């Protein structure tokens, strides 16, 4: 297995201003990426972290097509999963805040 895709640091990028990541990346796909990347940034111009949420990040919306969306109530299991997801997300954001104060 090769190195992770985010095996890099941004300590030498002195003009870096903005970093964007998907919410699903920081929680599920590459947990720890935000902490890892943020801790390496030393750019004085760095001022913006954008975390992008998409519709599928919210489990209660099922997109059949862009024009047709189904909203429904959650079963207790789904509610539990949803709570776990949010818990992980807030955990990731807390970690981010520990690394860098915004």
């Amino acid at each position, binding site marked *: 297995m090769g190195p992770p895709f985010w095996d890099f640091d941004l300590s030498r990028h002195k003009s870096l201003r903005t970093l964007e990541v998907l919410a699903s990346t920081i929680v599920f796909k590459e947990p720890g*990426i935000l902490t890892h990347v943020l801790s390496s940034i030393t750019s004085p111009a760095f001022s913006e972290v954008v975390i992008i949420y998409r519709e599928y990040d919210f489990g209660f919306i099922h997109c059949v097509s862009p024009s047709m969306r189904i909203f429904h109530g959650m079963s207790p299991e789904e509610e539990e999963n949803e709570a776990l997801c949010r818990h992980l997300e807030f955990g990731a954001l807390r970690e981010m805040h520990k690394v860098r104060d915004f």
Partner: protein
Amino acid sequence: MIITHLVYDKLSLCACSLTCHSWYIAAVPHLHHTLVIDTDDPRKRRFRWPNLIWYKHMLGLLPLVKKLHILAYISHGTGEITPKMFRCCTLGKFSALTNVQELGIDFLDIPKFMPRLRRYFGHFLPTVRSLALRSPRGSHRQIIYFIGLFQHLQDLKLLFRSFGSNSEGEAPVGDLTLIPPFVPPLRGQLTVTVLTRVELLEDMIGLFGGIRFRSMDLFCVVGMRLLLNACVETLETLRLHQNDVRGE
């Protein structure tokens, strides 16, 4: 002119173009700014390659096109973009696209156009500032050679759909002697998705004497460190995802 405010309202622009000559002159560049040609459009024959090119050429509209996207679908059986698509008079009409600034081509089979790439794409070279290649075919040297034809290129998108679509095949004889004719500025935005061909990135950086992108969208790229190190002085925005899924 107020017509410029209607740039996203095609119906109103159409209505304006029918009002009088001066309104037509103001509206028509916005109406024909973008041309998307589907090589396998199921709706109407008129929109399919090469009919749309012939139709627009007949009306003298091709020089108005600033943004061109040639769509292809391997799964639909239409295959790659090859010289066969430019038979008969199509190439002559295609060459009337002289003001394209943003060019997108799916499944471009570069080896089949070699060594006469300029014959097919020469009219794009002075004007194109943004190039998007989706799953291009060819060795990494051939892909870099194609990119190096565009002397004023600022933005580059290399979009692969899967790790399987990265397969390069056997490099042709003399591949290593291919040197891009120009060194494009490449100071705008780089978008790379699902790329495993590190040699492609290494050679691109080597042959172009470095890259100077200010913005990068990187998603599932092996060799991300290489790209980031190459833009240490210039990088301002880093997106660790594909900002624009369709690559438009």
